[in-house]
């Protein structure tokens, strides 16, 4: 008996020594990876702060000698930054609005109400995830051109009011977990379907709707191909398209471009830091799909 405990004691330090070694390797790997993954952001900020003269210095400096904070002021006047910012914000705002209105309603229809063929229709909606946007873009452009929506924000905003298969799926999964008794009890108390949805189910789904709102915001802010196709006059451009104007035929104003990029990326980083948990939750729904 006593020899056994002695053995266990002998094994334990050995084991933890191995664990410590494993942890050191894991830490070093992760720190190295983190450094690599932060390099682009670091280089963006460093470049944004360099003067033209320092920018053309060889070898390139890792830390700006004389940080040019004025680059930021210059960047927002070099291009009509304010206009683009406003356009991006308007599109993002209405995208969030469309996403949080449409997706819960559709998800409710696919989870809390029974109707013939419901699940078949749902699988069909999910299958549309496999239709990439580039497949549709020419036809969509032509359809929007015929109704006079090209060069307006409408083709970027209105589809958001018709739901997105991923987000419908995400909210539906959430709604499926709510026991049916809750809805039934409300119905017995005389609530109609709209009241059940609005008063009972919707408040319970707040976390899922928050995930969708955040994803919709990031999606709209980051969208490049949509604005590239639909927006034609410069006054309608978003930040995604506007950044290209730091490029002229022969030259790129890299320090100004990086200063503007910093400003464009900053809101996304802020949203990410504040709502990190929601981002992770949104991903885990994705993994359920596999």
């Amino acid at each position, binding site marked *: 008996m006593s020899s056994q405990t002695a053995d266990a004691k002998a094994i334990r330090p050995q084991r933890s020594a191995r664990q410590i070694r494993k942890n050191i390797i*894991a830490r070093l790997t992760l720190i190295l990876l983190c450094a690599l993954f932060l390099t682009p952001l670091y*280089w963006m900020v460093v470049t944004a702060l360099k003067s033209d003269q320092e920018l053309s210095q060889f070898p390139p400096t890792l830390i700006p000698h004389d940080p040019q904070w004025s680059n930021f002021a210059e960047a927002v006047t070099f291009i009509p930054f304010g206009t683009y910012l406003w356009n991006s914000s308007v599109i993002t705002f209405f995208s969030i609005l469309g996403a949080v209105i449409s997706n819960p309603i559709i998800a409710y229809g696919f989870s809390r109400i029974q109707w013939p063929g419901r699940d078949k229709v749902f699988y069909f909606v999910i299958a549309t995830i496999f239709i990439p946007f580039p497949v549709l873009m020419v*036809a969509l*452009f032509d*359809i929007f051109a015929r109704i006079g929506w090209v060069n307006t924000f409408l083709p970027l905003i209105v589809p958001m009011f018709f739901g997105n298969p991923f987000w419908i799926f995400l909210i539906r999964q959430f709604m499926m977990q709510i026991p049916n008794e809750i809805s039934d009890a409300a119905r017995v108390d005389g609530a109609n379907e709209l009241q059940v949805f609005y008063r009972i189910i919707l408040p319970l789904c707040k976390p899922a709707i928050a995930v969708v709102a955040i994803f919709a915001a990031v999606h709209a802010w980051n969208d490049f191909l949509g604005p590239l196709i639909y927006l034609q006059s410069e006054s309608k451009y978003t930040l995604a398209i506007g950044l290209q104007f730091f490029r002229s035929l022969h030259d790129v104003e890299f320090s100004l471009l990086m200063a503007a990029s910093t400003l464009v990326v900053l809101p996304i980083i802020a949203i990410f830091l504040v709502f990190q948990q929601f981002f992770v939750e949104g991903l885990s729904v994705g993994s359920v799909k596999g």
Partner: protein
Amino acid sequence: MVYPIFFSLYLSFSQYSGFGSPVWIGLDNYTQLLGDDVFWKSLYNTVYYMVLAVPFGIMVSMIMAIAMNQKLREVFIYRAILYLPSVLPLFALSFIFIWLMNPRYGLFNLALVNLGLPSINWLGDPKWAKFSIVLLAQMGAGATALIFLAGLRAIPQDLYDAARIDGAGAVRRFFSITLPLMTPVILYAVILGITLGLQVFIQSYIMTEGGPNQSTLFYVYYLYQNGFSYSQMGYASAMAWILFVVTLILSIGIFRWSRSWVHYELS
């Protein structure tokens, strides 16, 4: 969703510049595509990119996930830092990478030279341009890594304990336990990687404009050019339909093929 896809099919059988009405020309667009060298080049580039990017991305994500799966107190910090780049706008990352990969003033070559390696003309050399875009795509690896991490955490610890008692080493444990049990998640990453890989566009539009020597002229880029620069919307629609069918066939094919290597016992 349904109407545009059929409208796109109709357009693919027409000649249409975007003005007036489409003129029915039957299969002409498709036969013309078969003889279009640039079409084949763009298809080749895209497949090349996918074959490089998908396995590379899965490897990077797997290494990240395994490292994050160790019991480290500050793991949430690593998780946040590694995940962050994948939510940043791709257009901004593309601009940043132009400067990172600048042959003379870029950080990448500065690092190579300091390591005593020859510098690389990342985006200017047709041999390197596709790989450069694969590197940029790794900024999104953190998202896949978190999905992998969830998969790793679902593997019961007793399996590892039992294997260790049987004398299996770390490498053996990875290939006999971790990898087989991770196959459903890997399948998800493969399908996602292929769907996204077929759509690669923004990076080459911003960084290389399809060059050098058409080495980064990807499928969707050529589709975009046909539809919106050359006003050949019928031709572009035929390309769109081919892309649709290829996406479908690849996805179904991989699902079928996956039955021989995906293990569902525990999930």
